[in-house]
């Protein structure tokens, strides 16, 4: 069902945990649907220096979380906002059709975390 790459990221997820002094936190999903993703970003000079995640969800949810944090790290905010759910899925060598929503969740988590960072910035101005 899952690609080797999905299984590998699921088995050894990268960037697990929280960043205590995160600059942006994005929480998406819903426990009722069985998927919750929280993404923590550390941002300096418009560039994502570090990213971590916490996820409640299936194998695909955990693997896409892991891959999404890998993809955003080192990118500028604008670059990170370009990351689509397809890009996350492709980086994992694809997802089964009924699991594509997990990659959507990952895209949303990135956006939500950046949104949060920007909102804090506006507040702090």
């Amino acid at each position: 069902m899952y690609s080797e790459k999905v299984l590998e990221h699921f088995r050894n997820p990268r960037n697990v945990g929280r960043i205590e002094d995160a600059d942006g936190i994005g929480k998406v999903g819903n426990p009722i649907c069985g998927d919750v993703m929280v993404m923590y970003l550390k941002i300096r000079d418009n560039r994502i220096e570090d990213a971590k995640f916490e996820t409640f969800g299936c194998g695909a949810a955990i693997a896409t979380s892991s891959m999404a944090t890998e993809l955003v790290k080192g990118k500028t905010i604008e670059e990170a906002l370009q990351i689509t759910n397809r890009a996350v899925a492709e980086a994992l060598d694809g997802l089964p059709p009924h699991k594509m929503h997990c990659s959507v969740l990952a895209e949303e988590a990135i956006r939500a975390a950046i949104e949060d960072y920007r909102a804090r910035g506006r507040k702090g101005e």
Partner: protein
Amino acid sequence: MIYLDYNATTPCDPRVVEAMLPFFSEFFANPSSLHRPGQEARRAIERARSTIASFLGAKEEEVIFTSGGTESSNLAIRGVAQALRKKGTHLVTSAIEHHAVLNVFRSLEKEGFSVTYLPVDANGIVHPEELKKALRPDTILVSIMHANNETGVLEPIADLARVAHEGGAIFHTDAVQTVGKIPIDVTVLGVDLLSASAHKFYGPKGVGFLYIRKGTPIAPQILGGHHERGKRAGTENVPGIIGMAKACEIAQEEMGEEARRVGALRDMLEQGLEERVPDIHIVSRNVPRLYNTSLVLVAYVEGESLLLNLDFEGICVSSGSACTSSSLEPSHVLLACGYPHELAHGSIRFSLGKWTKEEEIFRVVAVFPKIVEKLRAISPFSKGR
């Protein structure tokens, strides 16, 4: 490999395969053929019918061969509904049935029948009083499963059937999870129809049976030649039928001992997990259940991720029911029992069987806590967060 998914399917008992083998290429004739090889094939499947009938306390002519549990339940429910449509259009089932039952009722609703889905209590039990309340003068059929495939909970079928009959309704039970595991006598249970699937009790896939009490009105669903007394057309699956009968024979002899042995292993598993993993819940632990089944809810983590991690360790289990595990829905059974969605997403079903060994249980008890710990470390919900 540690296989603890016997409720999803079982390996064929080697004695079953041995019994089937001569019927593929040697005694292969069509039981409808009039020549001697054909008549021999006919006698072989009638002997099988007789074995299965006596296993159930039924008459030979009350056992109809099908392609499996799903077809049996479809035939029972749709067949009776169609046959009795003029008498009434109200049907009753429960909220925790297998999809092979639920989806037939949903489809009958679209065809003008009205269906009551009985609730269950927190342990997943359908109460006869609830059935009594639901019955109406136009109720023609009640279908309640014998044991639930996810929780293993046994429903009070004899009582439910009595209540249904008092209300003038026919009673069907989906016994796919009990046939071969516990003794069944259709007269003691008092049911009119009973569905079974051979691959759930060490028989082959692709064959099952439906018990139909003599005189029960039923419309055939697969039409064609005059097979199975006009109740199910199609060339009989001779090797499959022979294999299923052998599986019944073996079950009859061995299930008492298996119940004792497997039941002890299951209890050991549950005790071990409970001692070592905090915040888990064993579903319906204190009500009558199948001795081989344990449904464990693990707080803060999702079932599939547990299942896959167990699979990495060579341990095969299920999350909820096998049939729904590729969908996104949490178990409808757990929701019907009143568990919150988060917990219903975190279910792991261990189902033990004939080849489960004590060492395997030890290994599961050793491995499971680490997996739960690892996933909880990833989870945003874990305690204290």
